[in-house]
Protein backbone atom coordinates (compact mmCIF):
# COMPACT_ATOMS: atom_id res chain seq x y z
CA UNK A 1 0.00 0.00 0.00
CA UNK A 2 1.27 3.43 -0.95
CA UNK A 3 2.07 5.91 1.74
CA UNK A 4 0.00 9.02 2.39
CA UNK A 5 3.04 11.27 2.13
CA UNK A 6 3.85 10.01 -1.37
CA UNK A 7 0.56 11.35 -2.66
CA UNK A 8 0.67 14.72 -0.93
CA UNK A 9 2.59 16.56 -3.72
CA UNK A 10 0.16 15.03 -6.22
CA UNK A 11 -2.81 16.48 -4.35
CA UNK A 12 -1.12 19.83 -3.72
CA UNK A 13 -0.62 20.25 -7.46
CA UNK A 14 -4.40 20.49 -7.61
CA UNK A 15 -4.30 23.58 -5.39
CA UNK A 16 -2.72 25.48 -8.26
CA UNK A 17 -5.57 24.43 -10.60
CA UNK A 18 -8.19 25.45 -8.03
CA UNK A 19 -6.62 28.87 -7.44
CA UNK A 20 -6.05 29.49 -11.17
CA UNK A 21 -9.67 28.54 -11.86
CA UNK A 22 -10.93 30.82 -9.09
CA UNK A 23 -8.88 33.82 -10.24
CA UNK A 24 -9.70 33.43 -13.95
CA UNK A 25 -13.40 32.97 -13.18
CA UNK A 26 -13.35 36.02 -10.91
CA UNK A 27 -11.87 38.18 -13.67
CA UNK A 28 -14.53 37.05 -16.14
CA UNK A 29 -17.29 37.44 -13.54
CA UNK A 30 -16.13 40.96 -12.66
CA UNK A 31 -16.05 41.97 -16.33
CA UNK A 32 -19.52 40.49 -16.93
CA UNK A 33 -20.78 42.10 -13.73
CA UNK A 34 -19.63 45.56 -14.80
CA UNK A 35 -21.17 45.08 -18.25
CA UNK A 36 -24.36 43.71 -16.67
CA UNK A 37 -24.65 46.60 -14.23
CA UNK A 38 -24.10 49.05 -17.06
CA UNK A 39 -26.73 47.24 -19.16
CA UNK A 40 -29.26 47.27 -16.33
CA UNK A 41 -29.07 51.03 -16.04
CA UNK A 42 -29.13 51.53 -19.81
CA UNK A 43 -31.43 53.94 -21.61
CA UNK A 44 -32.60 51.23 -23.98
CA UNK A 45 -35.27 48.89 -22.68
CA UNK A 46 -34.04 46.05 -24.91
CA UNK A 47 -30.61 46.16 -23.26
CA UNK A 48 -32.17 46.35 -19.81
CA UNK A 49 -34.41 43.35 -20.38
CA UNK A 50 -31.54 41.35 -21.90
CA UNK A 51 -29.53 41.91 -18.71
CA UNK A 52 -32.58 41.11 -16.59
CA UNK A 53 -33.12 37.83 -18.47
CA UNK A 54 -29.46 36.94 -18.03
CA UNK A 55 -29.45 37.37 -14.26
CA UNK A 56 -32.85 35.71 -13.73
CA UNK A 57 -32.04 32.65 -15.84
CA UNK A 58 -28.53 32.12 -14.50
CA UNK A 59 -29.52 32.54 -10.87
CA UNK A 60 -32.43 30.12 -11.25
CA UNK A 61 -30.31 27.19 -12.39
CA UNK A 62 -27.84 25.33 -10.13
CA UNK A 63 -24.13 25.91 -10.88
CA UNK A 64 -23.39 22.28 -11.62
CA UNK A 65 -26.27 21.97 -14.11
CA UNK A 66 -25.05 25.02 -16.02
CA UNK A 67 -21.48 23.77 -15.92
CA UNK A 68 -22.35 20.32 -17.30
CA UNK A 69 -24.71 21.83 -19.86
CA UNK A 70 -21.95 24.10 -21.09
CA UNK A 71 -19.47 21.20 -21.13
CA UNK A 72 -21.53 18.61 -23.01
CA UNK A 73 -23.89 20.94 -24.87
CA UNK A 74 -21.06 23.34 -25.71
CA UNK A 75 -19.04 20.49 -27.20
CA UNK A 76 -22.00 19.52 -29.39
CA UNK A 77 -22.40 23.12 -30.58
CA UNK A 78 -18.66 23.40 -31.29
CA UNK A 79 -18.78 20.17 -33.30
CA UNK A 80 -21.78 21.37 -35.28
CA UNK A 81 -20.11 24.70 -36.08
CA UNK A 82 -16.99 22.80 -37.15
CA UNK A 83 -19.02 20.54 -39.44
CA UNK A 84 -20.91 23.46 -40.96
CA UNK A 85 -17.96 25.76 -41.59
CA UNK A 86 -15.21 23.19 -42.08
CA UNK A 87 -12.86 25.30 -39.96
CA UNK A 88 -11.99 22.45 -37.60
CA UNK A 89 -12.56 18.75 -37.52
CA UNK A 90 -12.28 17.88 -33.84
CA UNK A 91 -11.96 20.77 -31.48
CA UNK A 92 -12.01 19.33 -27.96
CA UNK A 93 -13.23 21.71 -25.26
CA UNK A 94 -11.08 21.32 -22.17
CA UNK A 95 -12.69 21.27 -18.73
CA UNK A 96 -10.66 24.23 -17.45
CA UNK A 97 -11.90 26.62 -20.16
CA UNK A 98 -15.46 25.41 -19.75
CA UNK A 99 -15.27 25.75 -15.97
CA UNK A 100 -13.93 29.32 -16.25
CA UNK A 101 -16.71 30.19 -18.71
CA UNK A 102 -19.43 28.56 -16.59
CA UNK A 103 -18.35 29.96 -13.22
CA UNK A 104 -17.64 33.35 -14.82
CA UNK A 105 -21.11 33.49 -16.35
CA UNK A 106 -22.78 32.35 -13.11
CA UNK A 107 -20.99 34.79 -10.85
CA UNK A 108 -21.23 37.50 -13.49
CA UNK A 109 -24.92 37.60 -12.65
CA UNK A 110 -24.21 38.00 -8.94
CA UNK A 111 -21.58 40.65 -9.70
CA UNK A 112 -24.15 42.47 -11.83
CA UNK A 113 -26.29 42.95 -8.73
CA UNK A 114 -23.22 43.84 -6.67
CA UNK A 115 -22.11 46.62 -9.00
CA UNK A 116 -25.63 47.83 -9.70
CA UNK A 117 -26.30 48.14 -5.97
CA UNK A 118 -22.95 49.90 -5.49
CA UNK A 119 -23.67 52.29 -8.35
CA UNK A 120 -27.14 53.11 -7.02
CA UNK A 121 -25.76 53.93 -3.60
CA UNK A 122 -23.53 56.70 -4.98
CA UNK A 123 -25.38 59.95 -4.25
CA UNK A 124 -26.54 61.76 -7.38
CA UNK A 125 -24.88 64.90 -6.13
CA UNK A 126 -21.50 63.28 -6.78
CA UNK A 127 -21.91 63.07 -10.55
CA UNK A 128 -23.77 66.37 -10.64
CA UNK A 129 -20.93 67.97 -8.72
CA UNK A 130 -18.44 66.45 -11.13
CA UNK A 131 -20.37 67.79 -14.09
CA UNK A 132 -20.53 71.23 -12.51
CA UNK A 133 -16.73 71.17 -12.34
CA UNK A 134 -16.64 70.52 -16.07
CA UNK A 135 -15.97 66.77 -15.99
CA UNK A 136 -17.77 64.51 -18.36
CA UNK A 137 -17.80 60.96 -19.67
CA UNK A 138 -14.63 59.04 -18.97
CA UNK A 139 -13.01 61.57 -16.61
CA UNK A 140 -16.14 61.73 -14.46
CA UNK A 141 -16.29 57.94 -14.34
CA UNK A 142 -12.59 57.52 -13.55
CA UNK A 143 -12.25 60.19 -10.89
CA UNK A 144 -15.67 60.29 -9.24
CA UNK A 145 -17.74 57.20 -9.93
CA UNK A 146 -15.19 54.36 -10.07
CA UNK A 147 -13.47 54.87 -6.65
CA UNK A 148 -16.83 54.99 -4.88
CA UNK A 149 -18.19 52.11 -6.90
CA UNK A 150 -15.32 49.90 -5.77
CA UNK A 151 -15.70 50.92 -2.14
CA UNK A 152 -19.44 50.33 -2.08
CA UNK A 153 -19.10 47.02 -3.86
CA UNK A 154 -16.47 45.58 -1.50
CA UNK A 155 -18.68 43.71 1.04
CA UNK A 156 -20.80 42.03 -1.62
CA UNK A 157 -17.74 41.43 -3.81
CA UNK A 158 -16.08 39.65 -0.89
CA UNK A 159 -19.10 37.39 -0.41
CA UNK A 160 -19.16 36.58 -4.11
CA UNK A 161 -15.48 35.69 -4.11
CA UNK A 162 -15.92 33.40 -1.11
CA UNK A 163 -18.79 31.49 -2.68
CA UNK A 164 -17.07 31.47 -6.09
CA UNK A 165 -14.09 29.69 -4.58
CA UNK A 166 -16.33 27.01 -3.11
CA UNK A 167 -18.15 26.61 -6.43
CA UNK A 168 -14.89 25.65 -8.16
CA UNK A 169 -15.04 22.31 -6.31
CA UNK A 170 -17.92 21.35 -8.64
CA UNK A 171 -15.59 21.46 -11.66
CA UNK A 172 -14.13 18.17 -10.41
CA UNK A 173 -17.43 16.52 -11.40
CA UNK A 174 -16.74 17.18 -15.08
CA UNK A 175 -13.25 15.79 -14.75
CA UNK A 176 -11.11 18.87 -14.07
CA UNK A 177 -8.06 17.80 -12.08
CA UNK A 178 -8.49 20.22 -9.20
CA UNK A 179 -7.78 19.40 -5.52
CA UNK A 180 -11.09 17.57 -5.05
CA UNK A 181 -10.49 15.35 -8.06
CA UNK A 182 -6.87 14.63 -7.09
CA UNK A 183 -7.79 13.94 -3.47
CA UNK A 184 -10.41 11.42 -4.57
CA UNK A 185 -7.86 9.67 -6.76
CA UNK A 186 -5.25 9.64 -3.99
CA UNK A 187 -7.85 8.42 -1.49
CA UNK A 188 -8.77 5.50 -3.73
CA UNK A 189 -5.15 4.58 -4.36
CA UNK A 190 -4.13 4.60 -0.69
CA UNK A 191 -7.46 3.43 0.80
CA UNK A 192 -7.37 6.54 2.95
CA UNK A 193 -10.16 8.67 1.47
CA UNK A 194 -10.86 10.52 4.72
CA UNK A 195 -7.28 11.72 5.10
CA UNK A 196 -7.13 13.25 1.64
CA UNK A 197 -10.61 14.74 1.53
CA UNK A 198 -9.99 16.20 4.98
CA UNK A 199 -6.81 17.85 3.64
CA UNK A 200 -8.95 19.39 0.87
CA UNK A 201 -11.43 20.65 3.45
CA UNK A 202 -8.61 22.29 5.40
CA UNK A 203 -7.18 23.85 2.22
CA UNK A 204 -10.56 25.37 1.32
CA UNK A 205 -10.94 26.61 4.88
CA UNK A 206 -7.47 28.15 4.69
CA UNK A 207 -8.31 29.88 1.40
CA UNK A 208 -11.54 31.21 2.95
CA UNK A 209 -9.80 32.52 6.06
CA UNK A 210 -6.98 34.10 4.01
CA UNK A 211 -9.49 35.83 1.70
CA UNK A 212 -11.63 36.88 4.63
CA UNK A 213 -8.71 38.54 6.40
CA UNK A 214 -7.16 39.97 3.23
CA UNK A 215 -10.34 41.47 1.86
CA UNK A 216 -11.38 42.87 5.22
CA UNK A 217 -8.00 44.63 5.38
CA UNK A 218 -8.52 45.97 1.86
CA UNK A 219 -12.04 47.13 2.74
CA UNK A 220 -10.64 49.05 5.70
CA UNK A 221 -8.07 50.70 3.46
CA UNK A 222 -10.76 51.68 0.96
CA UNK A 223 -13.00 53.04 3.69
CA UNK A 224 -10.35 55.57 4.74
CA UNK A 225 -11.87 58.19 2.45
CA UNK A 226 -15.20 57.97 4.25
CA UNK A 227 -13.84 58.82 7.65
CA UNK A 228 -12.71 62.30 6.58
Amino acid at each position, binding site marked *: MADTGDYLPFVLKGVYVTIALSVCSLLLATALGLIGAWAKSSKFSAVRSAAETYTTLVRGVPDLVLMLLLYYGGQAVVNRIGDATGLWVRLQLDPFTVAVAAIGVIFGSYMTETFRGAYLSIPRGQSEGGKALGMNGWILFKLVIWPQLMRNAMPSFTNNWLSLMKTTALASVMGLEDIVNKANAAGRATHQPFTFIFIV*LIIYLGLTIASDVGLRFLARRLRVAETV
Partner: protein
Amino acid sequence: METAWSKLQDLSPIDLGVIATNWPLFAKGLINTLLLVSLPLLLAAAIAIPLAVIRAQKLRVLNPIVFGYTYVFRGTPLLVQLYLLYYGAAQFELIRHSFLWPVLRGAWGCAFLSITLCSAAYLTEILRGAIEGVPKGEVEAAKALGLSGVRLFWLIVFPSAWRRSLPPLSNEVIFTLHGSVVASTITIIDILGAGRMLNNKYYLAAEGLLTAAVLYLALTFVITAVFRQLERKYLSHLKPARS
Protein backbone atom coordinates in the same frame (compact mmCIF):
# COMPACT_ATOMS: atom_id res chain seq x y z
CA MET B 1 -53.09 18.18 -31.56
CA GLU B 2 -51.14 15.29 -33.05
CA THR B 3 -49.89 17.39 -35.94
CA ALA B 4 -49.02 20.36 -33.72
CA TRP B 5 -46.83 18.12 -31.56
CA SER B 6 -45.04 16.59 -34.55
CA LYS B 7 -44.55 20.02 -36.08
CA LEU B 8 -43.02 21.24 -32.82
CA GLN B 9 -40.71 18.22 -32.80
CA ASP B 10 -39.60 18.99 -36.35
CA LEU B 11 -38.84 22.59 -35.45
CA SER B 12 -37.00 21.90 -32.22
CA PRO B 13 -33.20 21.60 -32.35
CA ILE B 14 -33.37 19.15 -29.42
CA ASP B 15 -35.21 15.84 -29.32
CA LEU B 16 -38.45 16.61 -27.45
CA GLY B 17 -39.81 13.11 -27.97
CA VAL B 18 -37.13 11.45 -25.88
CA ILE B 19 -37.82 13.87 -23.01
CA ALA B 20 -41.58 13.28 -23.20
CA THR B 21 -41.31 9.49 -23.22
CA ASN B 22 -38.95 9.56 -20.24
CA TRP B 23 -41.16 11.72 -18.04
CA PRO B 24 -41.34 9.09 -15.26
CA LEU B 25 -37.58 9.40 -14.83
CA PHE B 26 -37.86 13.16 -14.31
CA ALA B 27 -40.88 12.72 -12.01
CA LYS B 28 -38.77 10.44 -9.85
CA GLY B 29 -35.92 12.96 -9.93
CA LEU B 30 -38.29 15.76 -8.96
CA ILE B 31 -39.63 13.82 -5.97
CA ASN B 32 -36.11 12.95 -4.81
CA THR B 33 -34.97 16.57 -5.12
CA LEU B 34 -37.98 17.76 -3.13
CA LEU B 35 -37.15 15.19 -0.43
CA LEU B 36 -33.48 16.25 -0.41
CA VAL B 37 -34.48 19.88 0.10
CA SER B 38 -37.54 19.78 2.37
CA LEU B 39 -36.52 17.28 5.05
CA PRO B 40 -32.99 18.62 5.61
CA LEU B 41 -34.33 22.20 5.71
CA LEU B 42 -36.88 21.35 8.40
CA LEU B 43 -34.25 19.55 10.43
CA ALA B 44 -31.77 22.38 9.85
CA ALA B 45 -34.30 24.93 11.11
CA ALA B 46 -34.79 22.91 14.29
CA ILE B 47 -31.01 22.84 14.84
CA ALA B 48 -30.51 26.48 13.89
CA ILE B 49 -32.95 28.01 16.40
CA PRO B 50 -31.06 27.05 19.58
CA LEU B 51 -27.69 27.69 17.91
CA ALA B 52 -28.79 31.16 16.80
CA VAL B 53 -29.84 31.95 20.37
CA ILE B 54 -26.42 30.87 21.61
CA ARG B 55 -24.75 33.12 19.01
CA ALA B 56 -27.02 36.10 19.62
CA GLN B 57 -26.77 35.86 23.42
CA LYS B 58 -22.99 35.34 23.12
CA LEU B 59 -23.15 32.55 25.68
CA ARG B 60 -19.74 31.77 27.11
CA VAL B 61 -17.93 28.64 25.88
CA LEU B 62 -20.80 27.65 23.58
CA ASN B 63 -20.68 30.73 21.33
CA PRO B 64 -17.13 30.14 20.02
CA ILE B 65 -17.95 26.48 19.39
CA VAL B 66 -21.08 27.31 17.40
CA PHE B 67 -19.19 30.02 15.53
CA GLY B 68 -16.51 27.46 14.66
CA TYR B 69 -19.18 25.11 13.36
CA THR B 70 -20.89 27.73 11.17
CA TYR B 71 -17.55 29.07 9.91
CA VAL B 72 -16.26 25.65 8.83
CA PHE B 73 -19.50 24.58 7.17
CA ARG B 74 -19.98 27.93 5.41
CA GLY B 75 -16.31 28.22 4.49
CA THR B 76 -15.93 24.90 2.68
CA PRO B 77 -17.75 23.47 -0.37
CA LEU B 78 -20.79 21.28 0.29
CA LEU B 79 -19.40 18.82 -2.25
CA VAL B 80 -16.28 18.29 -0.13
CA GLN B 81 -18.35 17.90 3.05
CA LEU B 82 -20.47 15.30 1.29
CA TYR B 83 -17.44 13.40 -0.04
CA LEU B 84 -15.89 13.41 3.42
CA LEU B 85 -18.94 11.61 4.78
CA TYR B 86 -19.64 9.37 1.81
CA TYR B 87 -16.12 8.26 0.90
CA GLY B 88 -14.26 9.21 4.07
CA ALA B 89 -16.32 7.67 6.85
CA ALA B 90 -15.59 4.09 5.78
CA GLN B 91 -11.89 4.60 6.51
CA PHE B 92 -12.47 4.17 10.24
CA GLU B 93 -13.15 0.84 11.84
CA LEU B 94 -14.74 2.71 14.73
CA ILE B 95 -17.44 4.28 12.56
CA ARG B 96 -18.13 1.07 10.69
CA HIS B 97 -19.00 -0.60 13.98
CA SER B 98 -20.95 2.28 15.46
CA PHE B 99 -24.65 3.12 15.44
CA LEU B 100 -23.90 5.81 12.81
CA TRP B 101 -22.93 3.29 10.15
CA PRO B 102 -26.46 2.54 8.87
CA VAL B 103 -26.81 6.28 8.16
CA LEU B 104 -23.35 6.81 6.70
CA ARG B 105 -23.20 3.63 4.63
CA GLY B 106 -25.72 4.70 2.02
CA ALA B 107 -25.79 7.68 -0.33
CA TRP B 108 -29.10 8.94 1.06
CA GLY B 109 -27.96 9.10 4.66
CA CYS B 110 -24.81 11.02 3.69
CA ALA B 111 -26.70 13.40 1.41
CA PHE B 112 -29.35 14.14 4.07
CA LEU B 113 -26.76 14.63 6.78
CA SER B 114 -24.44 16.90 4.83
CA ILE B 115 -27.21 19.06 3.36
CA THR B 116 -28.76 19.39 6.84
CA LEU B 117 -25.49 20.36 8.54
CA CYS B 118 -24.59 22.86 5.83
CA SER B 119 -28.05 24.50 5.75
CA ALA B 120 -28.16 24.61 9.55
CA ALA B 121 -24.90 26.57 9.56
CA TYR B 122 -26.28 29.17 7.14
CA LEU B 123 -29.67 29.32 8.90
CA THR B 124 -27.97 29.86 12.27
CA GLU B 125 -26.18 32.95 11.01
CA ILE B 126 -29.31 34.28 9.25
CA LEU B 127 -31.40 33.83 12.37
CA ARG B 128 -28.66 35.28 14.59
CA GLY B 129 -28.68 38.43 12.46
CA ALA B 130 -32.46 38.61 12.69
CA ILE B 131 -32.50 38.13 16.48
CA GLU B 132 -29.91 40.88 16.87
CA GLY B 133 -32.00 43.03 14.56
CA VAL B 134 -35.10 42.89 16.75
CA PRO B 135 -35.60 46.46 18.00
CA LYS B 136 -34.50 46.95 21.61
CA GLY B 137 -37.82 48.67 22.33
CA GLU B 138 -39.77 45.47 21.67
CA VAL B 139 -37.64 43.56 24.17
CA GLU B 140 -37.75 46.34 26.76
CA ALA B 141 -41.53 46.65 26.44
CA ALA B 142 -41.88 42.90 26.97
CA LYS B 143 -39.62 43.06 30.01
CA ALA B 144 -41.68 45.93 31.39
CA LEU B 145 -44.72 43.69 31.09
CA GLY B 146 -42.98 41.07 33.21
CA LEU B 147 -41.88 38.64 30.48
CA SER B 148 -38.49 37.03 30.72
CA GLY B 149 -36.42 34.05 29.65
CA VAL B 150 -38.09 31.47 27.44
CA ARG B 151 -41.43 33.27 27.33
CA LEU B 152 -39.78 36.49 26.23
CA PHE B 153 -38.03 34.60 23.45
CA TRP B 154 -40.97 32.57 22.14
CA LEU B 155 -43.63 35.27 22.45
CA ILE B 156 -41.69 38.37 21.42
CA VAL B 157 -38.20 37.87 20.01
CA PHE B 158 -38.68 34.78 17.85
CA PRO B 159 -41.91 35.87 16.08
CA SER B 160 -40.27 39.18 15.25
CA ALA B 161 -36.96 37.60 14.23
CA TRP B 162 -38.22 34.92 11.86
CA ARG B 163 -40.33 37.44 9.98
CA ARG B 164 -37.31 39.67 9.54
CA SER B 165 -35.31 36.73 8.27
CA LEU B 166 -37.82 35.92 5.49
CA PRO B 167 -35.90 37.68 2.67
CA PRO B 168 -32.54 35.95 3.38
CA LEU B 169 -34.45 32.75 4.13
CA SER B 170 -35.85 32.81 0.62
CA ASN B 171 -32.29 32.94 -0.73
CA GLU B 172 -31.20 30.15 1.58
CA VAL B 173 -34.00 27.84 0.40
CA ILE B 174 -32.97 28.49 -3.20
CA PHE B 175 -29.31 27.82 -2.30
CA THR B 176 -30.31 24.56 -0.66
CA LEU B 177 -32.23 23.58 -3.79
CA HIS B 178 -29.22 24.41 -5.93
CA GLY B 179 -26.84 22.77 -3.48
CA SER B 180 -28.86 19.55 -3.46
CA VAL B 181 -27.51 18.72 -6.94
CA VAL B 182 -24.35 17.38 -5.29
CA ALA B 183 -26.46 14.32 -4.40
CA SER B 184 -26.36 13.35 -8.07
CA THR B 185 -22.58 12.88 -7.78
CA ILE B 186 -23.06 10.04 -5.29
CA THR B 187 -25.53 7.97 -7.37
CA ILE B 188 -28.79 9.55 -6.18
CA ILE B 189 -31.30 10.15 -8.99
CA ASP B 190 -32.40 13.70 -8.26
CA ILE B 191 -33.42 16.06 -11.07
CA LEU B 192 -29.82 16.46 -12.28
CA GLY B 193 -29.26 12.72 -11.84
CA ALA B 194 -32.28 12.05 -14.07
CA GLY B 195 -30.94 14.47 -16.68
CA ARG B 196 -27.50 12.88 -16.72
CA MET B 197 -29.03 9.41 -16.86
CA LEU B 198 -31.10 10.37 -19.91
CA ASN B 199 -28.03 11.81 -21.63
CA ASN B 200 -25.98 8.69 -20.95
CA LYS B 201 -28.75 6.30 -21.97
CA TYR B 202 -29.36 7.86 -25.40
CA TYR B 203 -25.90 9.36 -25.87
CA LEU B 204 -27.29 12.91 -25.98
CA ALA B 205 -25.47 16.17 -25.34
CA ALA B 206 -28.11 18.56 -24.10
CA GLU B 207 -31.64 17.16 -23.76
CA GLY B 208 -31.44 15.72 -20.24
CA LEU B 209 -29.48 18.62 -18.79
CA LEU B 210 -31.73 21.20 -20.44
CA THR B 211 -34.80 19.51 -18.98
CA ALA B 212 -33.12 19.50 -15.58
CA ALA B 213 -32.24 23.19 -15.93
CA VAL B 214 -35.87 24.04 -16.80
CA LEU B 215 -37.18 22.06 -13.82
CA TYR B 216 -34.76 23.76 -11.40
CA LEU B 217 -35.68 27.15 -12.87
CA ALA B 218 -39.38 26.38 -12.37
CA LEU B 219 -38.78 25.31 -8.76
CA THR B 220 -36.78 28.49 -8.13
CA PHE B 221 -39.67 30.59 -9.45
CA VAL B 222 -42.13 28.70 -7.23
CA ILE B 223 -39.96 29.28 -4.14
CA THR B 224 -39.60 32.98 -5.00
CA ALA B 225 -43.38 33.32 -5.48
CA VAL B 226 -44.17 31.51 -2.22
CA PHE B 227 -41.79 33.71 -0.25
CA ARG B 228 -43.22 36.82 -1.89
CA GLN B 229 -46.62 35.80 -0.56
CA LEU B 230 -45.19 35.03 2.88
CA GLU B 231 -43.44 38.38 2.99
CA ARG B 232 -46.65 40.14 1.96
CA LYS B 233 -48.49 38.39 4.76
CA TYR B 234 -45.93 38.50 7.57
CA LEU B 235 -43.85 41.55 6.77
CA SER B 236 -46.57 44.00 5.75
CA HIS B 237 -46.22 45.83 9.08
CA LEU B 238 -42.62 46.73 8.22
CA LYS B 239 -43.39 48.20 4.80
CA PRO B 240 -43.09 51.95 4.45
CA ALA B 241 -46.51 53.56 4.70
CA ARG B 242 -48.18 54.35 1.39
CA SER B 243 -48.31 58.07 0.82
